[in-house]
C-alpha cells in the first residue's frame, strides 16, 4: 500500500516531471535572490554609511573551484549518458569533492572577512555580503547533499544511462548555482565596492 510502488504513468512523465519540478524550484530561488538584490539596491541607495567590503583573493580561488566542479559534473553527466559508468562514478565523485572544497573555501572566506573587521552588524554592505553568500551556500549545501547521495548510488551501481534523470537534474542545479555565484560576485563588485 505504501512505500516504493511504481506508478504506471504516461511514459517519460517521471523524467519530464523531474525537470519541471527543478525549473519550478529554480524560479523560486531566482525570486529569492531577486528580492535580495532589490533590498540591497534600496538599502545602498538610501544610506550614507555604506562601507566597501574588501574582496580577499580566496574569493577568486573559490570561484574557480566552483567552475571546475561544474565542468567535472557536466563531464560526468555525459559519461553516464554514453554508458561509461565507471568513468562517470569517478568524475562525479571528483566533482562532489571539489564542491566540498568550495564550501571549505567559503568558510575560510568568512573567517578572513571576520578577521578583517567585517561583521554582520558592522556595516550594511558587510551584512548583505554575508546574507548573500550564506544563502548561496545553503542552497549549495542542498545541491551537494544530492551529489553525495548520487555518489553513493553510483558506487552501488544503481545508476546507468537508463537511470540518469537524477544526475541530469542535479547537474543542471549545480550549474545554476555556479551561474548564481557569478551573478552575486558581479552584484557585490558593483554595489559593495
Amino acid at each position, binding site marked *: 500500500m505504501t512505500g516504493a510502488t511504481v506508478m504506471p504513468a504516461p511514459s517519460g512523465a517521471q523524467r519530464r516531471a523531474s525537470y519541471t519540478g527543478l525549473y519550478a524550484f529554480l524560479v523560486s530561488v531566482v525570486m529569492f535572490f531577486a528580492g*535580495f538584490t532589490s533590498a540591497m539596491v534600496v538599502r545602498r541607495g538610501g544610506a550614507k554609511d555604506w562601507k566597501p567590503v574588501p574582496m580577499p583573493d580566496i574569493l577568486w580561488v573559490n570561484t574557480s573551484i566552483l567552475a571546475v566542479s561544474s565542468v567535472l559534473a557536466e563531464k560526468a553527466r555525459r559519461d553516464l549518458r554514453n554508458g561509461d559508468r565507471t568513468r562517470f562514478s569517478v568524475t562525479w565523485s571528483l566533482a562532489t569533492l571539489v564542491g566540498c572544497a568550495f564550501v571549505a573555501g567559503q568558510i575560510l572566506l568568512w573567517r578572513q572577512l571576520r578577521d578583517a573587521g567585517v561583521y554582520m552588524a558592522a556595516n550594511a554592505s558587510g551584512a548583505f555580503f554575508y546574507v548573500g553568500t550564506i*544563502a548561496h551556500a545553503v542552497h549549495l549545501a542542498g545541491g551537494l547533499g544530492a551529489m553525495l547521495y548520487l555518489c553513493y548510488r553510483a558506487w552501488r551501481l544503481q545508476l546507468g544511462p537508463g537511470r540518469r534523470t537524477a544526475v541530469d537534474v542535479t547537474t543542471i542545479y549545480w550549474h545554476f548555482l555556479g551561474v548564481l555565484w557569478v551573478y552575486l560576485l558581479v552584484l557585490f563588485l558593483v554595489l559593495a565596492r
Partner: protein
Amino acid sequence: MRRYIFSTDHKVIGIQYYLLALFSVFLGMALSVIMRFHLTYPEAKVRLFGMLWPDAAAGGIMTPELYLSLMTMHGTIMVFFVLTTAPQSGFGNYFIPLQLGAQDMAFPVLNMLSFWTTFVSLLVLLAAFFVEGGAPLAGWTAYPPLSAAGAIAGPGQGLGQTLWVLSIALFCAGSLMGAINFITTILDYRTKGMSLMRMPLTVWGWFVAALISLFAFAVLIVGGILLLLDREAGTSFFLPEGLRINDRLLPNQGGSPLLFQHLFWFFGHPEVYIVIVPGMGIVSTILSVFSRKPVFGYKAMVWALFSIGLLGFLVWGHHMFTSGISPYSAIGFSVLTLAIGTPSAIKTFNWLGTIWGGQIRLDLPMLWALGFLSLFVTGGITGLYLGQPALDSYFHDTYFVVGHFHLIMGVAAIFAIFAGTYYWYPKVTGRYLNETLGKIHFYITFLGVYGIFIPMHFAGLAGNPRRYADFAQFEFLKDLNLLHKFITHTAFTTTAVQFLFLFSLFWCLKRGRQAPENPWQATTLEWELPSPPPHHNFGPSPPEVHHGPYEYSVPGAARDFRMQTEPEP
C-alpha cells in the same frame, strides 16, 4: 503510522491539510470573538481571561497588549493556516490528481514533507502564546521598527515575535514545496486526452495559485530573514539611525522601515490572490454543475485567472499609499490596482452568464457558490475606493479596510471553501452532509457575515481607526458604540452556527445519508471513482478524456451531462 500519519497519498495529505485549516479556523474565530467582546465590553471582568492570561488579563480585564497580540495571532492564523491552506493545499491536493486522471502528485514524498513542514510551522506559531511575554503584538504585517526592535518594544516582542518570524519562514518553505508539486503534476501528469484547455477551472485555479506562490513566497522569506537579523544579529536593514524606544537608544544606522513594507507587500498582495483564485475555480465549476450549463466563456476565465495572477504582482504599493512612498509611484500603483478590477469583473460577468438560462438547482453547494457571488461583488467593489490614493488617505487603517478585506477574504473565500466542502464531501466520504443543518448553517452565516462586515464600512466612513484596543479615548468614536455592539453580537451568533457545521462534518461521516458515486451528476473525472477513491485512484488503466469538463445539457444528448471520458461525439 506510515499509512496515515506520514502517508504520501495525496488524498490523505489533502485531508490532513483540511483538518489543519479546520482547527486553525476555529482557533482564529475564538480569538476574534474574544477581541470583539473586549471592544464592546472593555471593562468586563471575565474569569476565563484571568485564568488563561494571569499577567496580561490580571483580574479578568484584558490589557491592550493582550488585545493586540490576540489580533496579531488572529490575522496570522487566518491568512496563512486557513485561507492559504484549505482552498489550495486542502482541496488541491485531494482533487488535482483525481481531476487530471493521475495516480498521485508528481512528488508524493515532497508532498508529505510539505504538510509536515506546515504543521511544524503552526506549532512554532502557537508556541508564541506560551513563551515569556506571550504572542507578538505587531499585527500580522509585523512592520519594523516595532517588530524589529526586540523585547523593549513591548510584551510579546521578544521571543514571541521571533517565533512568529520563524513560523512564517517555515510556512513559506512548506508552501513552496506544495507549489512545485502542483505545477509539475498539472503540467506533466494529465491523462490521455486531458489537454490544458480540457482541465476543469478548479485545476486552473490551483495552477495559477501555485504559480503565484512560486514567485511570491521567496520574497517573503527574504523579508523574514532580514527582519530576523535586525532582531538578533544587530544589523540595520530596517532600523534607521536615531531610534529611541522605551528610553533605550538603539545603535542601528541607515536602515529603512519602508524596505520591509515593500518586501512584505510584494508577497502580501499576490498572497490574497493565492487565497481567492482556487475559490474562484471551485465556484465556476459548481455554478456550472448546478445550472446544468457549461461555464460561460471558459477561455476568458482562464485568461482572467492569469491576468489576475500577473497584475497581482504589480499593485503592492496600494498598501503603502500613506507610507511615505513617492506620490508618483502611488499614481502608478493606483492605475494598475484599478485595472485588476477588470479580470475580476470579467469573471463575475461570466459567472452570471453561466447561471443565466440554466436550470438552477439550489442544492447546498450551489447556495454557497451563489453566496460567494454576492459577497465577492460587495467585497470587491469597495476596492475601487481603496485603490485611489486620495480616497485611501481617509480610509487607510480604518475599519473600512477591515470590512473590505474580511468580506473578500474572510467571507467570500470561506464561502468557496464551504461550497467545495459540501460539494466534495460525498466523494471523500460516500455520504451527504446533512441538508437541514447545512441550510441553517448557510442562511445564518450569509446574513451574519453581511451583518458583521457591512457595518464596519460605516465605522470606517466615520473614521474609526483599526487596531485600537478600545474606543474610549476619542470623542468621535463614542457615536459608534451601537454599531460595534451590533457587529459583536452578530459575530457571536455567526460563530456559534459554525459549530453546527463542525458537528455535521463529523456526524455525517457515519450517520450521513449515503450518496451515490456521482450525486450531483457532474462530468469531471473524480465522479467516476468510488467514494472514497481507492489508493491509486484509477488503477493501472488511466482514463481517456474526450471532452471538456462542462458539457451539460448538450443539445441532442440522451442525458443532460456528458462525462469527460464518454467517447465521441
